[in-house]
């Protein structure tokens, strides 16, 4: 395990993969946006406002996906003390927070004309807001300790505990009465969304995912280099 994920080797691989990730992301966004605006039809009930879906839904999915990734990486960091897992969790947090914020903001912009309100305290919207607070708490906790290791540990525990929120978000629309509609794509009896709308949605979703990988690679490289800088600074102090 450690052999494949040692930081120096990671830096080397990340340097190769990063431009590819950038190219794939840009291609997916170009295709996805073209389809979202020009080939996807308006909805029979929502008209053109349905186009908000192509950014809202991928952002919401990625907000949850990033949290799951952060929680898993935190568990690996806590249990196996893997240096790269800790860095990956830390690098994921701001990206996940940005996606979650976007899901809330675009949802609000969609809810106003369709539902008739910017916001409602139903179980889906509230649990999504809690997700954003979990991200913010995670990032705040990291900086709250003088000792970096202790900050990393405390925030990793928070990430794990907060993972309980993920199934709550997913099933909130089934367990309780909500204003938000139930799932359209990931459901037992197949998606209840027309293929002409499903395809741009899926392409945008993959684009959001590769964007995350792209930014993740950059941020992990930055974190690893920052660790090296710290080591050098220590050496400088001791040597000089």
């Amino acid at each position, binding site marked *: 395990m450690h052999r494949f994920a040692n930081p120096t080797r990671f830096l080397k691989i990340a340097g190769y993969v990063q431009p590819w990730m950038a190219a794939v992301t840009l291609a997916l966004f170009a295709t996805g946006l073209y389809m979202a605006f020009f080939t996807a039809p308006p909805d*029979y009930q*929502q008209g053109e406002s349905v186009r908000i879906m192509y950014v809202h839904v991928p952002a919401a999915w990625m907000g949850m996906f990033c949290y799951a990734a952060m929680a898993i990486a935190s568990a690996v960091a806590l249990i*196996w003390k893997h240096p790269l897992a800790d860095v990956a969790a830390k690098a994921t947090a701001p990206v996940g927070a940005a996606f979650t914020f976007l899901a809330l903001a675009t949802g609000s912009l969609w809810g106003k*004309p369709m539902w*008739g309100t910017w916001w409602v*305290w139903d179980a889906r919207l509230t649990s999504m807001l809690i997700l954003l607070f979990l991200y913010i708490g995670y990032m705040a906790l990291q900086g709250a300790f003088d000792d970096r290791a202790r900050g990393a540990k405390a925030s990793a525990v928070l990430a794990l505990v907060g993972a*309980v929120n993920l199934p*709550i978000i997913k099933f909130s629309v089934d367990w*309780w009465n909500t204003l938000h509609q139930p799932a359209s794509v990931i459901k037992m009896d197949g998606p209840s969304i027309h293929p002409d*709308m499903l395809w741009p949605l899926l392409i945008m979703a993959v684009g959001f995912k590769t964007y995350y990988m792209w930014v993740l690679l950059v941020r992990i490289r930055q974190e690893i280099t920052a660790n090296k800088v710290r080591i050098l600074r220590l050496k400088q102090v001791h040597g000089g």
Partner: protein
Amino acid sequence: MAMKRKHKRLTFVLVAMALVGAATGLVLFALGDGVSLFKSPTDLVTAPPSESQSIRLGGLVEEESLRRETGSATVRFRVTDLENAVEVVYDGLLPDLFREGQGIVTTGKMVAGTFVAEEVLAKHDENYMPPEAVDALKKSGQWQPDDAEGGNHAEGFTK
């Protein structure tokens, strides 16, 4: 030795997660319907709320129940969960998705058997389709409003 410590941490994390999960489950179970956004017409019929109490009512706008009062913005319609229905009166702007057969959630008070609404929100279903696809389904006779619209709403609105 190192292996043992690793196992200890693994057990600790797993036990902690199980505890947190169980605690959350208990809290959510205890909250129960409190987390739900709205009450059904049946809830209001079986346990009528007091007139001073602000409540949220959710259900389907009953077909052919919508009446607009001439010379004002006041609308009257009935909200149903297919078992019971409640008369609603509302004076204000309706959301774009509002129509008969549509799911809605409304805030207001019960006054003398009528629900006086202060806010009406429309609920969308999980179906996304172009209008042409709906027309095609209707033409071929495969369009089941129960299935595509009312049915799914009723699922959320009837108990």
